[in-house]
């Protein structure tokens, strides 16, 4: 590896490296009282800069950098930019909440940035080592972030649960990695994934893939590996939940994409059925549990479980199509979840935490705009037309029907109908009930504008969806 390569690699990885340095800087800045109040701004500005760097360096070619351990292509950059945008929205919205809860500190933003960088590395990783490091970087940061609210009992509990279970998942993934390494003699993901083009499928390969994908299922919170998700949603501070619900999902989707794209294993009946049934089971469990929830975050968590099930179905469906269906689903789901949690973050304040669904009673009379935005978000999660959530579910169903899996499709849609009920319940509390939540604050024009971005996009992309589809189709082929 010569200097030229190194420079090229550095330049191609500049946004992440820049962010990394900024994360350090913020950590330092947090120590000094005089700089402490600037950490937010520094974080925002550096994220924007990183995003712009990433945006302007966008090319359609794929480049292997750092001795092929990382890869940069239009796929990675596209998803990274989405990560940046989502991240930006999250920190912009969470300011007020964090201030109320007195959680603002240098290490908070620094850790958050590290978690982001970890996810970005997962997206770019082409080597098992970098991949593992990326996973661990984001996980380690998140463990600490969840536990950040030291006075809260449930934060600690959420953190320890997430910690232990997440390490089990990591260990499973690593275990799978070790066998893959043993079979292929390589740590390069592209080589591992292409292994089958020259070799027969061995049972060991299948089992290690299943191990790895159980790890992935855990990260996506696909049932029965979902138990951590509701606890973390409930226990963690809302901005952290917001992060966990969104960016790692995108990262792990790319993880799955790397391992499965052009891989013959998808055509293996055992593996594809594994993905399929896991997905259906997850939709079932998620919806069934969400139905009885009284707490809004747990409800969203279980709805997340159901949606992750759909993501697995979408991955299954990439048999027929390509990963664009799954990618669209992941993006849709991520974005709508961010919107939902951001709205909850925004209306929670130190005096009034939105914990139960009934806390939203009469929100529409207090703030019509917020409740309409929330409604759009929820409808999108439920997959009702006029929102992109419809296309997301539509594509999955379409893929299932195209593979003549009508019964599966019917089961899935029937489960979705169950799911509809709890989304509607939120809407009914917001719109149909008389409210008393005078403590909800819904001021701040800038925040409202930021909150409106995603719901507006949800509608706008619904009306003109084709450029998204064709773009995803183009880059993921």
């Amino acid at each position, binding site marked *: 590896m010569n200097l030229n390569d190194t420079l090229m690699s550095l330049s191609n990885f500049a946004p992440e490296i820049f962010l990394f340095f900024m994360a350090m800087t913020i950590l330092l800045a947090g120590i000094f009282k005089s700089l402490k109040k600037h950490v937010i701004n520094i974080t925002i500005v550096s994220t924007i800069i990183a995003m712009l760097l990433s945006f302007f360096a966008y090319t359609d070619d794929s480049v292997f950098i750092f001795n092929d351990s990382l890869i940069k292509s239009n796929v990675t950059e596209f998803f990274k930019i989405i990560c940046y945008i989502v991240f930006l929205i999250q920190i912009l919205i969470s300011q007020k909440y964090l201030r109320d809860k007195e959680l603002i500190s240098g290490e908070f933003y620094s850790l958050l940035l590290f978690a982001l960088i970890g996810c970005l590395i997962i997206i770019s990783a082409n080597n*098992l*080592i970098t991949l*593992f*490091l990326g996973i*661990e970087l984001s996980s*380690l940061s998140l*463990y*600490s972030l969840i*536990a950040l609210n*030291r*006075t*809260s*009992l*449930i934060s*600690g*509990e*959420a*953190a*320890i*649960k997430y*910690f*232990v279970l997440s*390490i*089990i998942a990591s*260990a499973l993934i*690593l*275990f799978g*990695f*070790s*066998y893959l*390494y*043993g079979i292929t*003699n*390589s*740590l390069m993901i592209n080589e591992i994934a292409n292994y089958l083009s020259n070799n027969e499928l061995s049972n060991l390969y299948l089992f290690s893939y299943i191990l790895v994908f159980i790890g992935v299922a855990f990260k996506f919170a696909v049932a029965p590996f979902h138990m951590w998700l*509701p*606890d973390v949603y*409930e*226990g963690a501070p809302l901005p952290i939940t917001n992060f966990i619900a969104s960016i790692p999902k995108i990262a792990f989707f790319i993880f799955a994409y790397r391992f499965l794209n052009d891989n013959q294993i998808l055509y293996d009946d055992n593996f594809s059925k594994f993905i399929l049934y896991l997905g259906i089971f997850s939709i079932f469990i998620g919806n069934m549990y969400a139905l*009885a*929830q009284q707490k809004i975050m*747990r409800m969203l968590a279980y709805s997340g479980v159901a949606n992750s099930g759909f993501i697995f179905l979408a991955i299954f469906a990439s048999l027929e199509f390509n990963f664009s269906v799954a990618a669209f689903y992941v993006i849709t789901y991520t974005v709508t979840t961010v919107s939902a949690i951001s709205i909850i973050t925004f209306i929670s304040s130190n005096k009034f935490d939105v914990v139960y669904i009934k806390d939203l009673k009469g929100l529409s009379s207090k703030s019509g705009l917020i409740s309409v935005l929330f409604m759009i978000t929820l409808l999108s999660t439920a997959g009702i037309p006029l929102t992109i959530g419809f296309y997301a579910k539509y594509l999955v169903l379409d893929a299932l029907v195209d593979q003549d899996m009508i019964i599966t499709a019917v089961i899935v849609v029937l489960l979705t109908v169950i799911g509809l009920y709890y989304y509607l319940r939120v809407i009914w509390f917001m719109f149909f009930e008389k409210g008393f939540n005078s403590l909800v604050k819904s001021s701040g024009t800038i925040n409202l504008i930021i909150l409106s971005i995603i719901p507006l996009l949800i509608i706008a992309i619904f009306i003109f969806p084709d450029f998204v589809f064709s773009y995803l189709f183009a880059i993921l082929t």
Partner: protein
Amino acid sequence: MITMTHYLVFSALLFCISVAGIFINRKNILLLLMSIELMLLSVNTNFIIFSNYSNDITGQVFVFFILAVAAAESAIGLAIIVSLFRARNSLEINLINKLKG
């Protein structure tokens, strides 16, 4: 003659024991950390075996990374446990179920 299979079975058993340690242990959180450590070690064993048998050094490089990360994980785990202990004055796993349902 000890073949690769033996090693692999050994590491798999190690993995199983550690996993069992996690859910059979219902007393102390610290024991969890140990089980986790053991789990990662079984992975390490695997990597070393494969690396050795295939004459490829990268597997062993990976092991170093895993060890380092494991150390970091232990550190953070301990930190979480400390904060948990401060909040509730106990490390009984049985008591950690405020979040459920």
